[in-house]
């Protein structure tokens, strides 16, 4: 059981002044699964991602284990190279680079060990994997929102990460685009990539995740299968206020 855990946190905490953003959080993510992280605004989800990748902050206490190795003191670059890749809530791409060069940077610096030789075929494969059908030599700045998200994911995937951390991938997308994204993530997951997904909208998680944790005020309040978590009155209270669970 423990052997299949690829990424785990052990009582990780982080405070900003008087605010306990992450407060003794322990989760474990198993090989090959999609793990969901949910919770209302300000619950500490993105802060937890930052702590996992060391960017730009480190935990005040607690441990982060990746493949059984403590990484909470490692540099962000080391963590990235080790195979823990993340995306950001805002659809971040390198705007002054072309689509191709975005992927090239992701491949050249993100791969563990020596990067595989960069060529057209790899670029095309990466674009195909995220169903991004645009001209690879157009600047990334001009892409639509969904295509930027695709590119961001492709850019993380091109280095073949062991775990992909996705921070609110569906934010800002209309329902049709959201559907497309969920389909895409399902395909990527089917390829064997472990994923951790932050999502505010629980319905997206229930379509993707095998297990999930709900955070509120920096603490994990529930962990389990999505359908169980959604039924939990504490989750309803966390989302809709104290009166909602009545």
């Amino acid at each position, binding site marked *: 059981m423990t052997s299949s855990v690829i990424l785990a946190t052990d009582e990780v905490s982080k405070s900003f002044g008087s605010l306990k953003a992450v407060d003794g959080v322990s989760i474990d993510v198993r090989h090959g699964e999609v793990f969901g992280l949910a919770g209302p605004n300000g619950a500490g989800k993105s802060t937890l991602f930052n702590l996992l990748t060391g960017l730009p902050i480190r935990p005040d206490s607690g441990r982060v284990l990746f493949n059984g190795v403590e990484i909470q003191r490692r540099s962000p670059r080391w963590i990235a190279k080790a195979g823990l890749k993340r995306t950001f809530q805002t659809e971040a791409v390198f705007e002054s680079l072309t689509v191709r060069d975005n992927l090239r940077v992701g491949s050249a610096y993100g791969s563990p060990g020596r990067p595989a030789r960069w060529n*057209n075929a790899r670029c095309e494969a990466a674009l195909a994997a995220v169903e991004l059908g645009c001209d690879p030599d157009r600047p990334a700045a001009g892409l639509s929102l969904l295509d930027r998200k695709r590119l961001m994911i492709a850019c993380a995937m091109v280095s073949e990460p062991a775990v992909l951390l996705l921070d609110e991938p569906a934010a800002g997308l209309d329902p049709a685009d959201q559907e497309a994204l969920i389909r895409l993530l399902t395909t990527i997951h089917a390829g064997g990539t472990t994923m951790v997904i932050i999502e505010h909208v629980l319905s997206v998680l229930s379509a993707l995740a095998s297990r999930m944790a709900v955070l509120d005020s920096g603490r994990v309040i529930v962990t389990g299968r999505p359908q169980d978590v959604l039924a939990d009155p504490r989750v309803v209270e966390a989302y809709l206020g104290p009166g909602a669970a009545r």
Partner: protein
Amino acid sequence: MAPSPSASGRTRPPARTLTALVLAAVGALSACSSSSSTTSTAGAEGGGKVLEIGLLAPLTGPSASDGLGMKQGAELAIKQINDAGGVAGHTFKLNTVDVQGQSNDAVTKGVQTLTDNENVKAVVTGYASTSNFEIDEFAAAEKLYLIGGNTAQTQGIIQKNPAKYPTVWSITPNYDAYGTEPVDLADKWAAEGLWKPRNKTAFIVRSDNPYSESIADGLVKQFTAKGWKIAGQEKVPFGPVNDWGTVMAKIRSADPDFIVNTDYQVANEASFMQQFLQNPTKSLVFLQYGPNQPQFFELMKKQADGVLFNNLAGLVPAENYEPAMKLQQDWKAAYGTDAVDPQGAVTYAEVKLYAEALAKVGDPDDVAGIGAYIGKSDTQQATGRVVFDQATHLAKQGDDFVPLQSFQFQDQKKVLIAPDKYKSGTFRLPPWMK
């Protein structure tokens, strides 16, 4: 080298930028070369009548007022020559290059500009760089170069092999006298009872440049030789010195009989004096060169009284010396003041000297002939009688050649107090010592 082959779709920018670049370069260069060719037609064909005389002068920067003087002197001489119908069928035109703060860079650019220009037959200057490195450049380019300042450097360069520099002559003499005269005069005044030294101590301020350093070294040697004590020395960086406060503090604690500041820049010397006068010691103050410039007096006015200074190259202000009196009149007519700029006197003399040589030799392209003629000449210029020393190419120094003139400001006037041959007044105790 080509961009990576995979980058098939975006190969345009380099090609286009390159085209644009080449177009721009060719267009612009053709414009520039046509402009330079227009100047060359003016002189090159059939011994055309207008010759250019190059002038290296610091027109901007801290020595700008010297530069202005150099320009005025050369312009006055050229105007007089042209008005008199020119020399050997040629008239002159001045081609001035700004050497800014005398930086090697600016001087180099100026030298390149002048040596590249065929029409420039001779180059004059008061001083250009601080090391006179440009002498080698002009010698290599076989251009006539008449120089004034930094004679220690000129001597150092030329005396190794005078034959290599047939076209370079300095109308200013050796500066050795700068390093001895103030000491000798002080002793003389003490002997005459005009002044009573308390303990025969001197404080010397020098600036980090060859001119100031060599004079300061000479003074230290002379003071020591004459039984004085050096109470202290202070070196300041070359360039603007704004706050003399700490130097003053050291001077006050040394309380010397005689203070010499060899930083020749007029602004530095004026601020030195102003700050000294805030809380003066009972010392004579000698300032190297700077007070010769009219600007020193403009800035200081009454505060200048009592300051001692000297000059090896300026106009000899003696009523009985005709070339100097004539220049003074002409200067007043041209520029409205009879305070002839010392650097102006130098460039004026240089242009006149060249004109005289050209008149004798005839062909402006016979640079070697003109150089040789100048080297053997013996003329009365406004700065004194100019005869060249063949070992150093410097003008000879002495009361009968180019005299070292010592001055003191008295009652808001510049009074010549030595040598006796020309002097118009005698040394007085400065007001702060009374």
